[in-house]
C-alpha cells in the first residue's frame, strides 16, 4: 500500500506545482509530507506548525510514510509565503482548485461536478480556470453549475433549470454548442 501512496503523492505533488504556476503566473506551490511526530497544538487544538518550517521529506526516503499528513504552501507572485488563512477569498479558491486538479491529473475520475467554484474569482482568474477546463475536457467530463456569463460561454451543452409555478424544479432547455451563443443573449430571462 505504501508504494502506491508514495507514487501517487509524488505525481500529485508535481502536478500541483504545475497547476499553481498556471493559475498564479509567477507564483509557486508545494505539497510536502509533515514530520513524523504529531504536530504541536495550541490551547484550541489548532496545529501550530502549518507552513514553512516543516522540512520537506522526499516521499521515498522514509518507511514510516503511512502516517504523514499533507501540507500545502503557496507563494503568490511577488508576495512571501504565508499561512493559508491569510490568503484572499479568491486566492484560497484557486489553491483549492489547484489541489483538486493535481489529483485529477494524477488519477482522473470519470466526471466532475463543480458547483459555483468560481464565485470568489475575478474575471482574469475565471478565464484562467476556464482555460484549464477547456484543456482537460477531452480527458474527463465537467458539469458546472454557475451564474457567471463567462463560464456559460465555454459550454458544449447548456442546461436551464427554473422553478415552476407549482414550486417544483423544471428543466427548461438544453442547447448544444452551436445554438448556445444565440441563447446567451437571452440568458437574462433565466436569471
Amino acid at each position: 500500500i505504501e508504494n502506491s501512496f508514495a507514487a501517487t503523492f509524488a505525481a500529485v505533488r508535481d502536478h500541483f506545482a504545475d497547476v499553481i504556476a498556471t493559475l498564479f503566473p509567477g507564483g509557486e506551490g508545494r505539497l510536502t509530507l509533515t514530520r513524523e511526530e504529531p504536530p504541536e497544538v495550541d490551547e484550541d487544538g489548532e496545529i501550530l506548525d502549518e507552513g514553512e518550517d516543516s522540512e520537506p521529506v522526499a516521499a521515498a526516503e522514509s518507511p514510516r510514510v503511512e502516517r504523514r499528513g499533507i501540507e500545502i504552501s503557496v507563494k503568490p507572485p511577488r508576495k512571501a509565503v504565508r499561512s493559508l488563512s491569510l490568503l484572499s477569498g479568491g486566492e484560497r479558491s484557486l489553491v483549492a482548485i489547484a489541489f483538486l486538479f493535481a489529483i485529477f491529473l494524477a488519477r482522473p475520475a470519470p466526471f466532475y461536478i463543480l458547483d459555483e467554484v468560481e464565485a470568489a474569482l475575478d474575471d482574469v482568474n475565471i478565464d484562467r480556470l476556464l482555460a484549464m477546463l477547456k484543456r482537460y475536457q477531452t480527458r474527463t467530463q465537467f458539469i458546472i453549475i454557475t451564474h457567471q456569463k463567462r463560464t456559460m460561454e465555454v459550454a458544449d451543452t447548456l442546461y436551464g433549470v427554473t422553478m415552476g409555478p407549482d414550486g417544483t424544479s423544471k428543466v427548461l432547455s438544453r442547447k448544444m454548442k452551436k445554438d448556445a451563443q444565440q441563447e446567451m443573449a437571452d440568458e437574462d430571462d433565466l436569471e
Partner: protein
Amino acid sequence: MFLKSVKARGFKSFARSVEFAFEPGITVVVGPNGSGKSNISDSVTWAMGEQSPTAVRGNSMQDVIFSGSDKLAPAGMAEVEILLDNSSGAMPIEFSEVLISRRLYRDGDGAYFINKSPCRLIDVTELLSDAGLGRNTHSIISQGKVDAILESKPSERRAYIEEAA
C-alpha cells in the same frame, strides 16, 4: 467513461420525474436562485451512496424526499438513477452502461439497484471505487465548499491521495 444521465423523482425539488442527459466535454447548468441546480449535484452524491444527511444539506435523510409545495402534496419516496457509460470497461461489469439507482421511502426504508437488480450499498460503493469514483475522489464539489480542503488538517488531506492511489 462518463455520466450519461441523471433521473430524479420525488427527490428534493424534483417532484415529478426529470431527466438530464449529459455529454462528454463541458456541460454548464444555469438558472435563478432556488431553482434546483445544486439539488442536481445532491442527487448524484446521494445516488452514489452518501450516508450523511448534512452532505446533502438535510437534518435527516428523509429531508431529500419532496416535502410538498403550495400546490402539491409531499411525495412518499425519493428515487435517483444515474447512468454511467462503461464502454471503456473501467467498471468490472460486462455491461456497456451501468445504471445505479437509489430509493428512500418516508418510513426510512431504502434500496439500491445496479442495472435494476437490487443490491447492497457496499456493492454500489465498490463498483464506483473501481471506476475511480470513491468517496474521497472529490469529484463533486458542493456549493460553497471549494476551499474545504484548505480548512482540513494535513492528516485529513492524506485521504484524498490514498483514495486516488
